[in-house]
């Protein structure tokens, strides 16, 4: 029974639904490790997936998204709600600027913490 439970859950919320996906940004891929001292890269994540009718609670939607999805179910000219970041967090970068000065700066909204249908 314990083994079957996760399967049932997966059926309820297919993997195509809106959720957070892994995305690692490696600064060395674009040669930015020459001037970014730390970190070497970071986990940015991204949001992707369907926002199906009816929107369930775990899809982290708004009242407006529920209404828009409802209208879409009867009129396809109105698009479905979009799967977007609903919570973001900052990261700190240690880097050398154009003048070779060393800077530690906190950049807002660099990491996706949560996704939702909006």
């Amino acid at each position, binding site marked *: 029974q314990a083994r079957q439970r996760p399967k049932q859950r997966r059926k309820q919320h297919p993997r195509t639904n809106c959720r957070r996906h892994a995305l690692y940004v490696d600064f060395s*891929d*674009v*040669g*930015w490790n*020459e*001037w970014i*001292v*730390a*970190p070497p890269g*970071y986990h940015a994540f991204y949001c992707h997936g369907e926002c199906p009718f009816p929107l369930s609670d775990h899809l982290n939607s708004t009242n407006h998204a529920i209404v828009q999805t409802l209208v879409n179910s009867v009129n396809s000219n109105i698009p479905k709600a979009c799967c977007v970041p609903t919570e973001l*967090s*900052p*990261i*700190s*970068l*240690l*880097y*050398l*600027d*154009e*003048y*070779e*000065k*060393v*800077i*530690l*700066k*906190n*950049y*807002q*909204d660099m990491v996706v913490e949560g996704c939702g249908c909006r």
Partner: protein
Amino acid sequence: GAAGLIPEIDRRKYSDSGRHTPERSDINFLKEFELRLLNMFGLKRRPTPSKSAVVPQYMLDLYYMHSENDEPNIRRPRSTMGKHVERAASRANTIRSFHHEEAFEALSSLKGKTAQQFFFNLTSVPAEELITAAELRIFRDQVLGEAGAGGFHRINIYEVFRPALAPSKEPLTRLLDTRLVQDSHTRWESFDVGSAVARWARESQHNHGLLVEVLHPEESEGSEEVETNRRRHVRVSRSLHADEDSWAQARPLLVTYSHDGQGSAVLHSNREKR
């Protein structure tokens, strides 16, 4: 390097079209794309630091202290930050470090007193950034040998209002911070220079630098060798006896804490997450 900015799927599109060498318009597109990313980071162009560029250990310590990327395999250096640094960092989202311009330094070493004038070029601080705090960090190296150790030094930090008009004249200064230190310890001393640096950032024409004065009150009591060792205790100038690497990590460091009005402070981000 810039080609790496194109996602894999779009890179395939380029190669499918049969073009192996990118055309000028593609290169321009890549440059524009990279510039947009750099603008997002507050940079006008891609930095190309030389191999001689030095990253002060203090900045690395600050990064590890505040970083959210907790990687367990990396050994964290022992924190040497005081509460004043935590307070300053909690109000700032940007921390900048500066080494002085050695071409403008002026050293005078008279009996019982060493005075060194430093000029820090702060023109790279953007106008929209508000400096909330600044510290001048001076390294002092333990005096070796029982005969020389245990003495005291007075370190005075002055803001230079007007440089000396002639070599024999004194510059016009005001005292910013002072401390009595014992030469039996090896450590960094941090001095509050926030009021002067905040003004220089707003009005760069008033920046005539800082004067670091080291008084050696007990100098006359020791032998000549002891006196020489004591003079070397506070590292305000290059030593002929040490290599280049040690000076790069031991030279005075000006650290500014500022906020550009966007986003949370460096320190807060970690605490909020916890």
